[in-house]
C-alpha cells in the first residue's frame, strides 16, 4: 500500500484545522480530578503510572539490598537476624524481578506502542487499565506482609519442601503464592493486549518489516509471557493447595515430587528472564541509532535474533537445575542449548557496535547509558556462557558468581537501557528535556558504582562464597571483597538518587523540548510533546521504517503521510488494519474512561485478601464482586456498537 492509493480512500482530510483538534480533545481527554485518576484508560497515563510505580518498587528493593549489603560488609556481623535477612533477600528478588523489571518495560511499551504504531490507543484500553491496577494492588498485597513481619522467606524461587507447610507454617509463603498468582493476571491480560494491538491496530503501511525493534521485543516478550506465566501460576496453585487443602503435589511423604516445582518454576523463569530483557534490548536498538545519526545496522537480523532468543529461551530452563541429578543426556542437551542462545545475542551486539562505528555518535547522556550497556550486556552474556557449561556450573551455581551474573543481566540489560530510555523519551512524556550536566554525573556515578559493586562479586564467587547466606565466617578470604561490594552498592544507590533528582528538577525546570528534540525518525516524534490524548490528529500512513528521515535517507520514492489520513472524529475510534500488510480494514469503536477496571481489580484483591485471611466471607464477597464487575464491564454498550441501533420507524 502506498500513500497515493490511500489518497483515493474516503474521509481523508487535511489535519491543520484546529476545530478537529478541539473535537478530538473533547473525545479523548481524561477528565481532571480523582475521577480521571481512577477511570482513565489513556495508554500514556497508564504507561507513565507503570514506570513510576515500578521505580517506587525499585527504590524499595534497593533499600532492602543496601541493608543486606551492610550485614555482609564484614564477616560475622549481626545487624540482621537470619529470619530478617531471609525475608529481605526474598522480597528483594521478588520486587526487582516481578515488580520492577517486568512492569517498567510494560510501562514503556504501554506508553509507546500506539505512538510507535500510529494508532490512538491500545486494542483493549480498559484491559490496559486493569493490568496496571492489578500490578499495583498485587504489589501492595505482597508488601502488606512486611510490616507484619510475615514477608515471604523462601527466596524468589520458593522451592518446596522448604516452602511447604511442614517447614514454613506461617502465612509468609501464602503471601508469595497468592501475590504471584494475582500478579500473573496482570501480566497475562497485558500481554494479550500487546499482542492484539500489534496484530490489529498498526497504522496503514506499518507492515511487520517496518516495526521498531522495541515492538519486536515486547511482542516476543508478550508471547513468551502468555506461554510461560501459566506454568508458574499453576505451580503456585498446586503449592497453595498442598499448604491449605492437604493435597500432595510436592509432598515427598505421599510420593509427591519436589522437583516438579523446579521444572514448572524454571519453565516460566527462564523465558521470563528474556521477557524482561528483550524489550530493553529493543529500547537500545531504537534509541541508539538516533544518536548515531543513522538507521540501525541489520534491522532484519536483529529482529530475527529477538525472536530466536525467545524460542531457544524455552529450551534452556534445565540449566537452573544442573546440580539436581539429571541424566547426562539431558545435561548435554540443555548445556548446548544454553550456549547456542548466545549466538542471537552476538548478532545484536555486533549490530549495535556497527551502528556506532559507522555512524556519527553524539555523546548525550542517553547515548552513554545505551552504549555502556553493550559492555555490561557482554559481561552478563559471557558469564552466562560460563554457567551454561554444565561441569563448570556445578562449581559456579549458587555462588556469588551467579549473583554477579544475574545483576549484570538485570541491572546492565534492564536498568541501564531503561534509564537511557527515560532520558530519550522523557521529553515526549513531559514536554521537557532532562538536564544533561546532571545526567553525566548521574551516568558516571551509576556506571562506576555498579561495576565497583557487582564486578567483585564474580571474584568472591570464584573464591567459593555461596549465595543466600546471612553471614560468613572470617578466614575464608571474603571480607575485603564484600566491603568493596558494599561501598560500590552505595555509590550505585547515589547514582540512582542523582537520576531521581535530575528527573524531579527537569520536570519543573527542564528545557522545553518541542516535538522532536533528538531529530529522531519514528512516528512518536511527529506529534507534539507531551503527546496529546488522541496521539495523532489523523491516522498516519507509513511508507518506511523511518517516517521522519525519509527525505534525507531518500531510499525510495515513497513517502509516509503524516498530515493526511483517516481523521476518525465520530467518537473514540481507531483504525484496524490487516495482520501482515497493515491494510486498512475496519474502524474500531474504543471504550471511554471507565470505573470497571479499578473496581474489578479491587474485587479481585478482596478475593486474595480473603484467601490469605482464611475468611470465607471475604473470599465469597470478592468472588461475587469480581463476577459483578466482569458483568458490568462486558454489558453490551450501544456506543461501542455492541448493541443494535434502535430501528428508525
Amino acid at each position: 500500500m502506498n500513500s497515493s492509493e490511500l489518497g483515493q480512500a474516503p474521509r481523508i482530510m487535511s489535519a491543520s484545522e484546529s476545530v478537529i483538534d478541539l473535537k478530538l480533545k473533547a473525545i479523548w481527554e481524561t477528565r481532571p480530578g480523582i475521577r480521571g485518576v481512577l477511570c482513565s484508560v489513556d495508554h500514556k497515563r497508564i504507561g507513565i503510572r507503570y514506570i513510576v510505580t515500578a521505580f517506587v518498587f525499585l527504590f524499595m528493593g534497593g533499600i532492602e539490598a543496601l541493608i543486606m549489603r551492610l550485614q555482609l560488609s564484614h564477616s560475622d556481623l549481626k545487624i540482621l537476624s537470619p529470619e530478617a535477612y531471609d525475608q529481605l533477600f526474598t522480597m528483594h528478588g521478588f520486587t526487582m524481578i516481578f515488580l520492577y523489571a517486568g512492569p517498567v518495560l510494560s510501562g514503556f511499551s504501554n506508553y509507546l506502542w500506539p505512538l510507535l504504531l500510529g494508532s490512538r490507543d491500545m486494542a483493549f484500553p480498559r484491559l490496559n487499565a486493569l493490568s496496571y491496577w492489578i500490578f499495583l494492588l498485587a504489589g501492595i498485597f505482597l508488601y502488606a506482609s512486611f510490616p507484619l513481619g510475615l514477608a515471604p522467606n523462601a527466596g524468589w524461587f520458593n522451592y518446596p519442601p522448604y516452602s511447604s507447610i511442614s517447614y514454613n507454617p506461617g502465612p509468609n509463603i501464602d503471601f508469595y503464592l497468592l501475590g504471584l498468582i494475582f500478579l500473573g493476571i496482570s501480566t497475562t491480560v497485558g500481554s494479550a493486549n500487546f499482542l492484539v494491538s500489534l496484530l490489529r491496530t498498526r497504522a496503514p503501511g506499518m507492515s511487520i518489516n517496518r516495526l521498531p525493534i522495541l515492538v519486536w521485543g515486547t511482542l516476543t516478550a508478550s508471547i513468551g509471557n502468555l506461554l510461560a506465566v501459566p506454568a508458574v501460576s499453576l505451580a503456585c496453585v498446586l503449592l497453595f493447595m498442598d499448604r491449605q487443602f492437604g493435597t500432595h503435589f510436592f509432598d515427598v511423604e505421599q510420593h509427591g515430587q519436589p522437583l516438579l516445582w523446579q521444572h514448572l518454576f524454571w519453565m516460566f523463569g527462564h523465558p521470563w528472564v528474556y521477557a524482561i530483557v528483550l524489550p530493553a534490548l529493543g529500547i537500545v536498538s531504537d534509541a541508539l541509532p538516533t544518536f548515531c545519526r543513522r538507521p540501525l545496522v541489520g534491522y532484519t537480523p536483529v529482529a530475527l535474533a529477538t525472536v530466536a532468543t525467545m524460542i531457544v529461551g524455552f529450551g534452556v530452563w534445565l540449566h537452573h537445575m544442573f546440580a539436581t541429578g539429571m541424566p547426562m543426556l539431558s545435561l548435554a542437551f540443555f548445556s548446548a542449548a544454553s550456549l547456542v542462545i548466545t549466538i542471537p545475542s552476538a548478532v545484536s551486539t555486533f549490530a549495535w557496535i556497527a551502528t556506532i562505528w559507522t555512524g556519527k555518535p553524539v555523546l548525550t547522556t542517553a547515548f552513554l547509558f545505551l552504549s555502556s550497556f553493550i559492555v555490561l550486556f557482554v559481561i552478563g552474556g559471557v558469564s552466562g556462557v560460563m554457567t551454561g557449561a554444565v561441569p563448570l556450573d556445578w562449581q559456579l551455581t549458587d555462588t556469588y558468581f551467579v549473583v554477579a551474573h544475574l545483576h549484570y543481566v538485570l541491572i546492565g540489560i534492564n536498568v541501564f537501557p531503561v534509564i537511557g530510555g527515560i532520558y530519550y523519551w522523557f521529553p515526549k512524556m513531559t514536554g521537557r528535556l532532562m538536564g544533561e550536566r546532571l545526567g553525566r554525573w548521574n551516568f558516571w556515578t551509576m556506571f562506576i558504582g555498579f561495576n565497583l559493586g557487582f564486578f567483585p562479586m564474580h571474584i568472591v564467587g570464584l573464591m567459593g562464597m555461596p549465595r543466600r547466606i546471612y553471614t560468613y565466617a572470617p578466614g575464608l578470604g571474603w571480607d575485603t571483597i564484600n566491603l568493596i561490594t558494599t561501598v560500590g552498592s552505595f555509590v550505585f544507590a547515589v547514582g540512582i538518587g542523582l537520576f531521581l533528582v535530575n528527573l524531579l528538577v527537569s520536570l519543573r525546570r527542564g528545557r522545553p523540548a518541542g516535538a522532536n528534540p533528538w531529530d529522531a525518525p519514528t512516528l512518536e516524534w511527529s506529534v507534539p510533546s507531551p503527546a496529546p490524548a488522541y496521539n495523532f490528529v489523523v491516522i498516519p500512513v507509513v511508507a518506511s521504517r523511518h517516517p521522519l528521515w525519509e527525505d534525507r535517507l531518500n531510499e525510495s520514492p515513497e513517502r509516509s503521510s503524516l498530515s493526511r489520513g483517516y481523521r476518525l472524529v465520530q467518537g473514540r475510534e481507531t483504525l484496524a488494519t490487516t495482520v501482515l500488510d497493515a491494510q486498512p480494514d475496519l474502524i474500531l469503536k474504543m471504550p471511554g474512561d471507565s470505573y470497571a477496571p479499578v473496581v474489578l481489580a479491587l474485587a479481585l484483591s478482596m478475593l486474595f485478601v480473603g484467601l490469605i485471611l482464611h475468611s470465607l466471607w471475604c473470599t465469597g464477597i470478592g468472588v461475587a464482586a469480581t463476577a459483578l464487575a466482569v458483568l458490568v464491564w462486558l454489558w453490551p454498550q450501544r456506543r461501542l456498537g455492541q448493541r443494535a441501533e434502535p430501528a428508525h420507524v
Partner: protein
Amino acid sequence: MMPMRGCRITGLACIVALSACSYAPMTYMRTYGPAADPVTSLGWGLTIICSLVVALIGVLVLIATLRARVARGLLSTIPIAHPGGGLRWIYIGTGLSTLVLFALVVWTMFTLAAVASAPERPAFTIEIRAHQWWWEARYIDDASDRTFLTANELHIPIGKPVQLRLIGDDVIHSFWIPALAGKTDVIPGQTNSAWLEATQGGTFRGQCTEYCGAQHAHMAEFVIAESEADFDSWWTRQLADAPVPTSKLPALGESIFLARCAACHTVRGTGAGGIVGPDLTHLMSRRTLGAGTVPNDPESLAHWIVNAQAVKPGCRMPALDLSHEEVAAVTSYAQTLL
C-alpha cells in the same frame, strides 16, 4: 574509560583470582582431585576467553564511540546517512562467536564425560543425609559391623575414589567440596550420587549451597584427606564405643547427658540412642561444632551445650536449662568422647 576498564578488569581478575587461591579455602580455581581438576581447567579457560571477549568488545565500543563522535549540540544539524558496510560486522562477529562457542561446547562435553564417573571402582561408599542444618554420614562397609555413623566431617584416603550416596531428609540441600568436586543437590524423595577423590592430603572445606532456611549460612562440611594408614586407623577408632567415664565429674556429666540429651543424640555404648541430632560417640575427633559454626574447644563446647540458640539461632538444638555445675559436668563428659 570502558575498554581500559575491560583490560584492567581482566588483569585484575587474574591476579586476584590467583592470589585468592592461597588464602581462600573455598575457591575452586585450584583443586585437588580428578573429579574437579578437568573442570578447573575449563573454568580457567573460559574465564580467560570471556575476559578477552569483554576486553575486545569494550575496546571496540570505545573506539567506535570516539573515532567519529561529533560535538554535542542540535542533533538536527548533523546529517542523517545510511552508510553501508555495517552488515559485515554482524557476519564476521557472529561467525567468530559461533566458532568459539562450538569449540566451547565440545570442550564442555569432553569435560562432562571426564568427571561424570570415577575412573576406577570406588573404594567404598559414604551415605550422606542432609538435615537442617548439619550432615549425617554413614560409612558403609561390606561387613556390617564395620559400618558407623558420624557427622559434618568426612575422612577419605588419598588417591582413592569414594562414592557418595546423597539422601534428602527434610528440605533440599546441596553437597559441595569445591576443592574436590562440584555440587550435587540432596533432594528428599530421591537418591543422588557423586564421587570424589583427593590427590593430596589436607582439610577441604565445603558448605551447603541450596538455600535451606534460617541457618543455611552455618552448614559447613569438611573432608579430611589422609594417608591410607591414618585413614584405616581413624575408621577403626570410629567403630569403638564410648569409654565409660572414670572420674567423678564426667560420670556426673554422663548421667545428666542420659537424662537431658539422649532423646536426640546417640553415644554408642551408653543408653543414649536418639537419632534426631548428630551421633556424638566420637565428638572430640571433630574440629568444629554446629557444622562448622564454632571451633570445637572447651569454651565453645560449654557455650554450645547450654545455649546453642545463641550460637546458631534457629537451630534444632534447644537452649537447655542447666546450672553452671551441670554444664561443667556435661562438658567434661563430652570431652571424654574421643
